[in-house]
C-alpha cells in the first residue's frame, strides 16, 4: 500500500514538474510579446487581449475536455500564425520606415496633447487599443493552445494525472505573471520608438515560426530557431532602415 502511494506521489510530482517546465517556456514566450505590446500601445488593450485569450482557452478546456486532442492542432496554428505574421510584418515595415525617416516618428508631445484632450471627453475614456488587444490575444492564444495540448499530453500517462498537469501549467502562469509585474516598470524606461521596432521584430519572428509550425515545416533546432528568427529579422530590419534612409535633399534632387 505504501509503495502504491509512493508511486502515485512520484507520478503526480513528475507530471507536475513536466507540465510546469514545458508550460513555463510557452508562458515566457507569450509574456515577452505581451510585455512589449503593452509597453508600446498601453496596458488595458494588451491585458484585455491576453486575458480574453486565457478565458477562451479555459472555456475550451472545460467544454471540450479530452476531445481537445482530436482538434486539428496544425490547422489552428497555421490560421492564427498567418494572422500574426500579417500583423507582425505590417508592424515591422512601419517601424523600419519610421526609423528611416520615411514616415514621421512618434511625437510624444503631440500624443500627450491628444491624450489630454481625449481624457476631457468622457466617452473616450472607455476606448481601448484594438492593436494592443489583437497582438496580445493572438500570441496568448497560440502559446495557450500549446499549453492546453501539453497538459492533455502529459496527463495521458495515467488516470488522475490531469490535476497535476493542470496545476503545473497554472503554477507556470502565476510565475510568469509575477515576472511580468516585476519587469513592466524597467521596460517603460526604454524609448518608445526603439520598443516599437523590437515589438515588430518579435511579432514577425513568432508569426513566421507559428506559420511554419502550422504548415508542418521543419525548423532546425525546433523552438530554438525562434532565437535565430529574432536575430535574423533584427539584422534585416537594420539593413532595411539603412537602405530606406531618407537621402539628403541635394542627392535626392540630383538623382531625379
Amino acid at each position: 500500500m505504501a509503495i502504491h502511494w509512493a508511486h502515485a506521489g512520484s507520478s503526480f510530482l513528475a507530471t507536475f514538474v513536466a507540465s510546469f517546465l514545458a508550460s513555463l517556456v510557452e508562458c515566457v514566450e507569450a509574456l515577452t510579446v505581451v510585455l512589449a505590446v503593452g509597453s508600446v500601445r498601453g496596458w488595458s488593450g494588451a491585458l484585455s487581449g491576453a486575458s480574453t485569450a486565457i478565458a477562451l482557452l479555459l472555456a475550451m478546456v472545460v467544454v471540450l475536455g479530452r476531445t481537445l486532442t482530436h482538434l486539428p492542432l496544425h490547422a489552428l496554428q497555421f490560421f492564427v500564425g498567418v494572422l500574426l505574421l500579417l500583423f507582425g510584418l505590417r508592424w515591422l515595415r512601419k517601424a523600419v520606415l519610421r526609423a528611416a525617416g520615411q514616415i514621421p516618428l512618434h511625437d510624444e508631445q503631440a500624443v500627450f496633447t491628444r491624450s489630454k484632450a481625449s481624457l476631457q471627453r468622457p466617452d473616450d475614456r472607455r476606448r481601448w487599443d484594438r492593436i494592443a488587444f489583437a497582438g496580445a490575444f493572438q500570441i496568448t492564444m497560440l502559446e495557450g493552445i500549446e499549453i492546453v495540448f501539453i497538459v492533455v499530453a502529459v496527463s495521458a500517462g495515467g488516470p488522475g494525472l490531469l490535476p497535476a498537469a493542470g496545476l503545473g501549467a497554472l503554477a507556470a502562469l502565476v510565475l510568469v505573471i509575477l515576472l511580468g509585474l516585476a519587469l513592466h516598470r524597467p521596460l517603460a524606461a526604454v524609448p518608445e520608438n526603439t520598443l516599437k521596432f523590437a515589438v515588430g521584430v518579435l511579432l514577425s519572428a513568432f508569426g513566421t515560426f507559428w506559420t511554419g509550425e502550422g504548415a508542418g515545416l521543419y525548423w532546425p533546432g525546433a523552438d530554438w530557431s525562434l532565437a535565430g528568427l529574432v536575430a535574423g529579422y533584427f539584422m534585416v530590419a537594420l539593413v532595411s532602415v539603412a537602405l530606406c534612409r531618407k537621402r539628403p535633399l541635394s542627392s535626392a534632387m540630383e538623382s531625379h
Partner: protein
Amino acid sequence: MRWLKTVCKEVYGLFVDDGGFASAILAWVALVKLVLPRIPLLRAWQGVVLFVGLVAILLASAVRFSRRNTIDRHP
C-alpha cells in the same frame, strides 16, 4: 448594417495596410506550404526558405515605399 461594415473594416485594417505587401506574404506562405513538402532535398531548409522569402518581401516593400516617397517629395 453600418456597424458590421465598420467592424469588418477595422479588423481588416489590423492586418492589411498595403494590399500588395499582404498579398505577397499570403502568396509566399501558400507557395511554401504547397510546394516545399514535395521537395525532399529541401526538408532541412523548409523554415529557412519561408523566412528568406518573407524578409525579401519586407525589404522590397520598404525600399519601394521609400523610393516612391522620395519621388513624390522631389518630382
